């Protein structure tokens, strides 16, 4: 079986969904823990140059979550509900509080590849194409987003 060592991403042209696939060296149970244990989750959700503070966390079917990411006095908050926390599947809603009307439905499935390896299938269904494209274009962690917005305009104009 091919190894998906780096994340594969697909933005569906017909449905406002972002799909990602990636392989991990770890069991599905470990992946589940890394997604449901707040201390573990805060360690990797990142980005690198931000701290993540878990404000609310109840990783059970019907539970909810909220975390705050900060850098240089700036804060970004995210919240959602755990719609389903199964044995190898998590379904949850996701809202960036800076755009409180937007909500995405995220489904994460951990496929056991055997030999202590797991393939993660993640999909984020946004409520509009605009919402999805805003997600794709967001990237405060890189700190150079303003510049990219300009570059996007150049590309959109077909000049480049």
């Amino acid at each position, binding site marked *: 079986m091919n190894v998906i060592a780096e994340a594969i991403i697909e933005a569906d042209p017909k449905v406002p969904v972002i799909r990602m696939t*990636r392989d991990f060296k*770890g069991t599905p149970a470990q992946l589940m823990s890394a997604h449901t244990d707040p201390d573990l989750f805060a360690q990797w959700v990142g980005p690198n140059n931000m701290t993540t503070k878990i404000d609310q966390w109840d990783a059970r079917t019907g539970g909810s979550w909220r975390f705050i990411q900060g850098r240089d006095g700036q804060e970004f908050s995210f919240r959602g509900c755990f719609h389903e926390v199964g044995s190898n599947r998590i379904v949850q809603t996701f809202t960036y509080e800076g755009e409180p009307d937007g909500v995405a439905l995220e489904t994460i499935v951990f496929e056991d590849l055997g030999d202590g390896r797991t393939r993660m299938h993640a999909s984020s269904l946004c409520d509009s194409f605009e919402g999805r494209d805003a997600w794709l274009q967001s990237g405060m962690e890189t700190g*150079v987003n303003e510049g990219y917005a300009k570059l996007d305009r*150049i590309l959109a104009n077909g*000049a480049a």
Partner: protein
Amino acid sequence: MAADTLSRIFSALADPTRRDMVDRLATADATVNQLAARYEMSLQAVYKHLRVLEEAGVVSRPQGPQPRSVRLEAEVFDLMDSWIERYRRRAEERYRRLDAVLEAMTNDEQKEQHNERDR
């Protein structure tokens, strides 16, 4: 496209002057002097910015009649596939952190197994 090539492009474009140069070159090729006229900085400083862009493969200065003009390498942006690639890159960074967490979990579990065996 190799990750280090991408990060070189990203860091080259992280500077507002260099982004402005790219913006200008998207309209048409320009000589270094034409570019420099837009900025209140020494010609030397303009050359320095151009060198960063050139080394990242964002622009080139093809051989030809003097003064040589600076050209935007459009295929760089094709390769980047714009925002999807950026998003993917951020996801990949996140997953590398998750790799590290998983590795630590596995190490802890193995240590525990060893301790239980020793008991």
